[in-house]
């Protein structure tokens, strides 16, 4: 058993039940190898952008400056049309601002030379774009078939109960937003929960209080 001792709950967030496998969490998740990505995103082939990645968001951040401008420029080089760079650009905007407001859509449209309506059409199609602000931790609980068979709905209820929120609403302290999500492709390790960018697997209803405590104290 080599999962870090500081993890106070049965499931440390990686695929596999604690105590059965002799790899560390970092080895399974790849964090030891991946480490910190360079701020500018590295090589342009691999400067992708991720929807909601940061617990700290700045809704007024400039689109784009500094390393984010570099990443944006790199993204532009990888697609034959400006329009094709739209989704990575929106991802970048959301990574920075935490959600995609109508103003953000207009700004992104101007950056890429697209009509605002085109951008709005795209944004509203995809579930990962938050159309309004969310908490520091966006908790997405899978209740689709494989998780549903293994207490998915109970885990969702536990998250709502322990954060004291309604589905889709943000807790009073601004920390947590809990939503239901469709299949996260971690069906062998139910219940799958995604919190910001990170997957937590094998989550049971009883794990929820400790998990929330860990988030409050250690962040993601």
């Amino acid at each position, binding site marked *: 058993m080599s999962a870090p001792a500081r993890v106070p709950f049965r499931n440390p967030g990686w695929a596999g039940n604690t105590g059965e496998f002799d790899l560390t969490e970092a080895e399974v998740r790849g964090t030891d190898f991946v480490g910190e990505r360079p701020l500018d995103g590295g090589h342009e082939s691999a*400067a*992708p952008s991720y929807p909601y990645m940061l617990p700290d968001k700045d809704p007024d951040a400039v689109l784009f400056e500094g390393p984010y401008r570099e990443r944006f420029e790199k993204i532009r080089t990888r697609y034959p049309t400006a329009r*094709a760079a739209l989704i990575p650009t929106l991802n970048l905007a959301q990574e920075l601002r935490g959600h995609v407001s109508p103003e953000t859509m207009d700004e992104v449209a101007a950056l890429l030379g697209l009509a605002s309506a085109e951008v709005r059409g795209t944004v509203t*199609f995809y*579930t990962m774009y938050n159309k309004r602000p969310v908490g520091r931790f966006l908790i997405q609980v899978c209740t689709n078939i494989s998780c549903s*068979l293994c207490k998915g709905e109970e885990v969702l209820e536990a998250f709502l109960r322990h954060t004291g929120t309604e589905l889709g609403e943000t807790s009073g302290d601004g920390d947590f937003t809990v939503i239901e999500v469709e*299949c996260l492709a971690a*069906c062998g390790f139910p219940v799958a929960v995604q919190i910001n*960018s990170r*997957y937590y697997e094998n989550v049971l209803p009883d794990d929820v209080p400790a998990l929330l405590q860990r988030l409050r104290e250690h962040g993601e």
Partner: protein
Amino acid sequence: MAYPYVHEREVRMISRNFGDPAARTLDGYRERGGYKGLERAFEIGPAAVIDEVKASGLRGRGGAGFPTGLKWSFMPKAGVKPHYLLCNADESEPGTFKDRELIRWDPHQLIEGCLIAAYAMGSRHAYIYLRGEFFEASQVMARAVEEAYERGFAGRRILGSENDIEVTVHVGAGAYICGEETGLMNSLEGRRGEPRVKPPFPAAVGVYSMPTTINNVETLAAVPHIVEHGGEWYRQWGTDKSPGTKLFCVSGHVEKPGNYELPLGFPMMELIEDVCGGMAGGRALKSVIPGGSSVPLMDVEDCRECTLCYEGVEAAGSMLGCASVIVMDDRTNIVREVRRMVQFYAHESCGQCTPCREGTPWMTQVLRRIEAGGGTEADLDTLLDMSAQMTGTTICVLSDSAAAPVVSSIEKFRDEYLALIHGAERAEVA
């Protein structure tokens, strides 16, 4: 014990590096025999690569099972138009969790597969479309692609040859329908991920209106092995119509859920009872969905003789799909689970076609009513009627997929529906 669960009956080809973090680096991958397929591909030339893949009988692992070599041969000869290769890593079929493992344990295997496929089809740009939720996997993938560029395995003049192939990691933003090939193409163009009417087929008019081939992660992961060892070698596993090995994603009520790489044609009951350690808590089996939530449910009778290959599962009344085996025990409320699946399709319907846009939420409502004890027997006829109108009437098969579990569950588990319907009536009388 190494992660993940490993069983002695597995044939670990594409999953050979699962649980081995050192294989994520380019050097680690090469030490384990990696990039030999690419070298051989450059030696034998594009036409011979396609011939090897054709000879192997490899079928698309994304669900449809279309022969990969044949698909590749549809691409026009290289001309003035750019050709594109897309790798579909938008893994989102409920029950499927193989691609994330393939990417996070063995990213270079996928890069090698992409390079070989792109080379064979004269494509100079490969996009790897990852679903937006895969943050970790995309980090691993991004780092691996970067390393491939640094070491001359991607980009200009690969391995000192005349071949230029760009590889780009693209991250989506959450939509099941982007796993449909033309939906994915629209998404890659920055549009709403709505599937396109075919024809024209992607090989003629695909992404950016150019000839395009799209393959699943698992398909491309098998390609380096086939090219390195030859198509005939690959046929030593599996059946005549379904050659090779396949990752089976087993989830639900089994002792050891996980990904198991087995030769196609493996008996279903042995997968559950032997490989997965039997039913969780020693309970009895009630139903299996063999290929992800889009395929018909099977009952115990169907499972008993079923072998897990494309033709075997078809003979048992379902489809192999992407081999996502969802196992349900005797306590499962079938109506509730079917409702949950249909609810998913209602959420994910892109809304282009009326039968799907209107049918999926309506079905969800009817199923909810039955689940809550307010249904009637006529509701079952309504559901079957709707299913008939939702099958084969839309641009893509999302609508058909929503109907499949409804029809099959009413056929095979009618008693469960009736118990809910009449249970309420009996309670009223009492």
